[in-house]
């Protein structure tokens, strides 16, 4: 199959979320992960603005301006949800009560360093939001991003070139052509797109990447964007 589209990437990450877990999804593509949960998973999505138990987006008739997620989307609350203030919300995040956070990224280094908050756009103001808190505080940080930049440059590097979000925090990376673990020995590919193969994967990676002995083909069902 060809490289995964963004919906398929979100689907692939969703398959690995453990049943019963509490998960925070970053802005952009990571939020889509909640659309593709397997039916046998009961998961609470947490949002930085103080919601534990974000449900699907609200339809036009049931919107409430005060039931929003951190990306300002009007959402619903699932059964069992609770709403807290920012201090309590960040106690959940910083105190290790979030099982998994899935974030976007510009770059990940082979030691788990993450750069995802400042692309150095001239004159544009910084926006860190809760990214550093999530990367440091969640029990596991997963990344959902394209394997390469639009120009084809590698995003998996020996050392990040952009400002760090947090050192040594990334555990796993879901991309359009591979699923990669970050281990004490560096990057290890767990799944690779059949049409890409190991040689191409290595050539598109900015540093050494090992292939897991039980490496599988990366697959996803047909999902339109």
């Amino acid at each position: 199959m060809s490289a995964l589209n963004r919906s398929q990437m979100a689907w692939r990450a969703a398959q690995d979320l453990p049943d019963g877990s509490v998960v925070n999804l970053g802005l952009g593509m990571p939020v889509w992960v909640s659309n593709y949960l397997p039916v046998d998973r009961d998961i609470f999505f947490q949002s930085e603005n103080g919601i534990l138990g974000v449900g699907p987006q609200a339809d036009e008739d049931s919107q409430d301006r005060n039931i929003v997620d951190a990306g300002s989307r009007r959402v619903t609350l699932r059964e069992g949800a609770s709403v807290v203030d920012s201090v309590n919300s960040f106690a959940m995040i910083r105190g290790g009560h979030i099982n998994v956070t899935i974030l976007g990224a510009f770059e990940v280094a082979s030691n788990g360093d993450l750069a995802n908050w400042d692309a150095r756009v001239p004159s544009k103001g910084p926006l860190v939001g809760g990214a550093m808190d999530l990367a440091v505080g969640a029990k596991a940080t997963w990344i959902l991003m394209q394997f390469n930049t639009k120009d084809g440059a590698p995003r998996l590097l020996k050392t990040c070139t952009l400002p760090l979000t947090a050192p040594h925090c990334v555990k796993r990376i879901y991309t359009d052509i591979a699923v990669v673990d970050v281990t004490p020995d560096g990057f290890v590919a767990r799944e690779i797109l059949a049409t890409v193969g190991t040689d191409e994967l290595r050539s598109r990676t900015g540093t050494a990447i090992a292939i897991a002995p039980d490496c599988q083909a990366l697959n996803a069902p047909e999902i339109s964007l």
Partner: protein
Amino acid sequence: MAIDKRVATAAEALAGVKDGAVVMVSGFAGAGFPNALLEALRDSGPTGLTLVANSATHPLSLTHTLIEAGMVTKVIASAARGRGQELSSFEQQWRDGKIELECVPQGNFSERIRAGGAGIPAFYTPVGYGTELGEDKEIREFKGRPCVLEDAITGDLALIRGDVGDRFGNIKFRYAQMNFGVAMATACTTTVAEVREAVDGAIPPVEVQLPSVYVNHVVAVGGEV
């Protein structure tokens, strides 16, 4: 004399805000922006303000009107990037050196305000360590983990938005409207709460989310639920 913290207008509640005041403004992701109070503050015209707000550029918050009016010389925020390529009023003044920016991870932001309101002068946290936002901060290791020292933030004036207030100053919020309102009210010398409705009776004790002790003035401004 019976306590009654309700005042008729936002202008009355904000009379006498001094030049150079540190003003905290609640709101996040479209919920909890005290826009009636922000309009009144802009009209009253103090200058040299330090603005403590999660975002300096959120399109639904009127914080930008204080910036456009040239009343702000410093911003403490976790988000300060305007949407799109065009520079926001904040970004223009920041680039031109007219406004100083302290960019703070959102969890450090809320915790620094919480600490300010709880009498804690500073605390250590791993969030920000090893990043540009942790540079020049004191570092100490706890259980093998390096942490940065973060100072508390206190202010002169908190402007917050709630749903219902009573004459004692007790406040109830609607869902995610709560966000930074509680912590900011605790951390400032004076707190003004705008609410949809100010009631004659008392909010039932178990429903109070921000206790009266932290609130000085309550202004009913209406608006949708």
